[in-house]
């Protein structure tokens, strides 16, 4: 029952996302051809013939009835055909996404995970040692979270990369020395290039996790089972981890799945600042170029990843919190 309900929910969410995905680009004014023309124009006059030729090329034909378009859209999705990107014509959208996705997944995904874990640990300790110096750091981490991300990132790039030269200016790896492959050289280069973006993500997002965990810890510490555990004479470490933290972490873990959605969104800004070759960058590009197919494909991939991640955490959650096994959602 609970599993079925859950799956039904995700199906509804997926359907809503698919429909939104279909509808929104169609409401956008203008078309990809005109955007492309804007770029061509800077190289010479653009004749009506050029426009005509490009219209033909990109198949921007709007005479098909909308319901037919919707059905076609669903059908091509079902067959894994996301269409052809105008920006990267004639490359299929799937290829564009495939080459961008790993960067975002690895950098943003991993960093988010690391941030989460560190935040949890610090939050646990701060909550446990309520009132000590660790705890008094909490407000300052929250202040960091109030600084606009891109502003922080740009200031850091300016100070650490441009001025001090400690970090690279941007990009995914040193393209002059290595290329994507499973080699030490490439991986270390990618790591080096990811350091500053990762750092900024950690700095700007860790505060929320710390605070949430800290507050949950404080609440949990007054729960009867924690007092019982202390009364049982268990070691403080055992009480802190098994009794307090394991329970206190539950809402944060649930929140982590939701936060994945913001992660992808946040990557748009991050990748912009750091010239990072991920899907955030591709997404912005698609929007600016009215590249419907690419936009739709990316939105779809983002949505499905987020839904998938949620489902995964949801299922995992059942192992972490035995109550949900019976309770159902």
């Amino acid at each position: 029952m609970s599993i079925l309900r859950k799956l039904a929910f995700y199906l509804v969410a997926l359907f809503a996302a698919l429909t939104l995905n279909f509808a929104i680009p169609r409401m956008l004014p203008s078309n990809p051809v005109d955007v492309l023309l804007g770029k061509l124009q800077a190289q010479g006059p653009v004749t009506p013939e050029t426009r005509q030729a490009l219209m033909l090329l990109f198949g921007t034909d709007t005479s098909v009835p909308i319901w037919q378009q919707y059905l076609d859209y669903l059908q091509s999705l079902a067959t894994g055909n996301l269409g052809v990107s105008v920006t990267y014509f004639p490359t299929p959208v799937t290829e564009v996404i495939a080459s961008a996705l790993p960067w975002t997944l690895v950098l943003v995904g991993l960093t988010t995970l690391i941030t989460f874990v560190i935040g949890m640990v610090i939050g646990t300790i701060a909550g446990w040692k309520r009132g000590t110096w660790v705890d008094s750091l909490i407000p300052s981490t929250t202040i960091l979270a109030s600084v606009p991300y891109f502003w922080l990132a740009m200031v850091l790039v300016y100070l650490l990369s441009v001025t001090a030269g400690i970090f690279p200016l941007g990009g995914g790896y040193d393209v002059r020395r290595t290329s994507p492959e499973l080699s030490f050289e490439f991986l270390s280069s990618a790591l080096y290039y990811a350091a500053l973006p990762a750092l900024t993500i950690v700095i700007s997002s860790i505060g929320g996790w710390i605070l949430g965990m800290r507050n949950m810890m404080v609440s949990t510490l007054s729960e009867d089972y924690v007092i019982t555990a202390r009364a049982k004479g268990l070691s403080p470490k055992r009480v802190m981890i098994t009794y307090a933290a394991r329970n206190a972490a539950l809402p944060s873990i649930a929140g982590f799945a939701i936060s994945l959605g913001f992660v992808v969104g946040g990557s748009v800004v991050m990748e912009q600042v750091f010239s990072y070759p991920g899907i955030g960058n591709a997404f912005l590009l698609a929007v600016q170029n009215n590249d419907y197919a690419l936009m739709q494909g990316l939105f779809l991939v983002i949505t499905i990843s987020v839904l998938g991640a949620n489902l995964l955490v949801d299922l995992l959650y059942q192992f972490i919190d035995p109550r949900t096994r019976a309770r159902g959602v």
Partner: protein
Amino acid sequence: MAELITESIAVRADAADEEPDDSQRRRGRSAFWRRLLTPKFVVGAVVVLLIVLFGLIGPLITQDPNAIDNIGLSSPSGAHPLGTTSVGQDVLAQLAHSTRGSLTVGVLVAAFTLGLSAFFGIIGAYIGGITDEGFSLLSNVMLVIPGLPLVIVIASYVESQSVLLVIVVLALTGWAAGARVLRAQTLSLRNREYVLASRVAGERTWRVICVEILPNLLPVMSSGFVFGIVGAVLAEAGLSFIGIGATGSLTWGTMLADAQNGQALLFGAWWWFAPPGLLIAALGAALSLINFSIDEVINPKLRTTNIAKVERRTKREHQS
């Protein structure tokens, strides 16, 4: 899953439930504001007040923020206390108007968001049945659909990127989490005795909601409102940065975007680039302080103040 996220916020409210009876409940309400007056709250409130005053009065006493002067990108001076932009506009004047703009965005988005959350959260939970199912499905779906990409797509579509558009888009995509929290709270409240009593006594639904339920949700809602402001200001700044914000209006976000487009960092024009960012941070920090205080009033356990002192005292007395 979606409902789990709200638990962390709900915890606070659980603590608020420790009000044994009606009389205490009423006392609690008035005590809420009294207990709020902690040093943290005062500092936060003063900073917020200063920023608000700057936004209110600043535009009246500074120069025309759009006025062009032939000294582009000049550093702070007597005539321009915060220097000028690349076309010689007075940064201080722009900052004052931007403060007004950003605060407007923040407050309106937070208000609209709260309104939507309250509508979908409270009404749904109170009425129950199909309505609740529907509302709660809607908010869960909204919660799992990635927001920013959606915002980008919508914002890039609507004609003329006005402040109003940004406000509407942010509110439309931001209400779901709040609705879940309020729903959870309302569910627990609607079965309280005083609420049941009102219902049995035949009070009209809206009256029960307004008189019996809303006041008890006030702490949670005020905290949500405060967070909403920070979130909206940050979101607006982010949208402006990637070029789809409230262009044409003055907000901290558009100022930062202008500074970025004008390569302020390249020219070392810190006076153009730094103040809007710092003001956002200051507002965020101040509102966070206020929120800490609200949290601590709702849930005294969360208090950090004085505990260290108490602990030292404990130790001392122990040893004696």
